[in-house]
């Protein structure tokens, strides 16, 4: 054994102490960084708190198809998987940022949000290790689609137990640009729900699946639910039957797909209609360009 680097002083009074100091760089009686049971207890308490007081959101991993290595982007990316997970919102009053603003980019809803997930709980509910930059998160309660812009990289080095069960993430409202977002309800829920909804008579509805008829569960809307026969569901009220609306629980995520294209009610149409009355295209245009 080499000569001890620790000088003999008042705390090192015998050979045993000398050996201990030589064998471990830190004091093993005060090193909590490897206490697995304490770490798991702490993590389970954080997870329980998030599940009790947090929000249910839907995680949509970004699926990269054809990354352009020059410009560092993938216009072909899509979002087709969705997972419900628990998340705690750190902002207690409102979003961060100016919210609705008018810029030369027209009308934007610029808002950010800080959140926290528990590492193991998130990994259980979403089949990825930690949240990723660029993935989307849908908040059904607010009907807002967020994009993850920052994920905390601190794993535990600055924490007393040597582990950090929380992952802090920053999200801002998504800037949508034609990506394919096709999330099926069955991907989010174990069983598909069909909604028979007539405000005054939902308690009088009956549902029929595979020949069986029963009164649907009623909670504002009437849900006809059977994992095997949902595509055969029919609703009946006063002798009239109809097919209930499918994917009624979270349909709005998919509604954004295709919104990049202008419609007849957009400004393009009005500009075209009015502008064509001002321009004279009666003469032949030698360049073949008609505006």
């Amino acid at each position: 054994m080499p000569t001890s680097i620790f000088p003999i002083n008042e705390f090192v009074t015998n050979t045993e102490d000398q050996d201990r100091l030589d064998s471990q760089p830190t004091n093993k009686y005060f090193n909590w960084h490897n206490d697995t049971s304490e770490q798991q207890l702490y993590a389970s308490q954080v997870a329980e708190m998030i599940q009790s007081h947090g929000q249910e959101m839907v995680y949509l991993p970004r699926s990269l198809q054809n990354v352009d290595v020059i410009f560092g982007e993938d216009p072909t990316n899509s979002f087709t998987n969705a997972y419900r997970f628990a998340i705690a919102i750190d902002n207690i009053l409102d979003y961060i940022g100016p919210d609705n603003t008018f810029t030369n980019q027209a009308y934007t809803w610029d808002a950010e949000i800080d959140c926290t997930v528990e590492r193991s709980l998130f990994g259980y509910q979403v089949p990825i290790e930690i949240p990723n930059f660029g993935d989307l998160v849908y908040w059904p309660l607010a009907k807002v689609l967020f994009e993850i812009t920052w994920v905390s990289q601190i794993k535990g080095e600055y924490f007393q137990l040597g582990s950090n069960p929380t992952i802090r993430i920053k999200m801002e409202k998504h800037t949508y640009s034609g990506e394919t977002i096709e999330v099926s309800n069955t991907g989010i829920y174990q069983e598909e729900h069909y909604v028979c909804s007539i405000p005054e008579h939902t308690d009088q509805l009956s549902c029929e699946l595979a020949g069986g008829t029963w009164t649907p569960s009623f909670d504002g809307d009437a849900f006809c639910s059977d994992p095997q026969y949902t595509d055969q569901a029919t609703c009946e009220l006063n002798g009239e039957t109809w097919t209930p609306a499918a994917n009624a629980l979270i349909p709005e995520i998919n509604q954004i797909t295709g919104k990049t294209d202008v419609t007849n009610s957009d400004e393009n149409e009005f500009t075209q209609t009015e502008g064509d009355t001002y321009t004279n295209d009666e003469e032949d245009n030698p360049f073949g360009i008609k505006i």
Partner: protein
Amino acid sequence: MIGYFFFNNTLRKYVVTFGNIFNNISVRHGNNTTAKVPVQQLTKEKFVQALDDNNTDPNVKVILPMITYDLVDIKYDASRKTNTLQNRKIYKNTETGKMNSILNAIPYDLKFKLYIFTRYETEMLQIVEQILPFFQPAFNIMIKSFPEMGITQTDVPVILDSTSINNEYVGNDSDIRHLSWELEFTMRAWIYTNLDNDAPIINRVLIDFGVMGPEDNVSLEGIEWVTDPIPSTGEDDPLIIKNTFTIVDP
């Protein structure tokens, strides 16, 4: 002196026509669907813009790509100045024998800014490539600038003055990349004064040959043209001219 009302709707024509130039630009998304890029004029009432917003269900920050434009400056162009005393006349469809009359058009340069926003550089290049080749540096539009006076073939060049790229890709890792280009254009436009719809028609022309009589105050010879009848519309073709040769006795 200049405080009487008239409005020829000319400036609105130029603004709408400018927006109409970029009305049919499309991008091809990665999933091979082609979408027309929305074009918006910027100076809207905020509540109208908010009511028209479709970034809801689900609510997102903004939907791109997008093109916006704005009229930012108007400047007199002295190099295109014309004779201010000349005016243009056109017959009215009336029995009063009056005409519509207007002074020459006044040249003004309209400065427009066009903003292009995309999420992806690929889409930005698609949009810009659909614009730039048509400006060398001017793109000519024929505008019906004053059809009430038969001015329906006014060539209005739109000149691409400058292009600036305002991409933001540095900063915190929580700031996502913003791609925006700003194109500045000059539209060489013409605007008009008020329309005089009560201008008199010249229906009699007398040329005095200056052959004077002994008393020096009586013309001996001259030619007089008188329209007969007074034309009622500009479409009367040809005008009936009564040519009268007159010899005035001393």
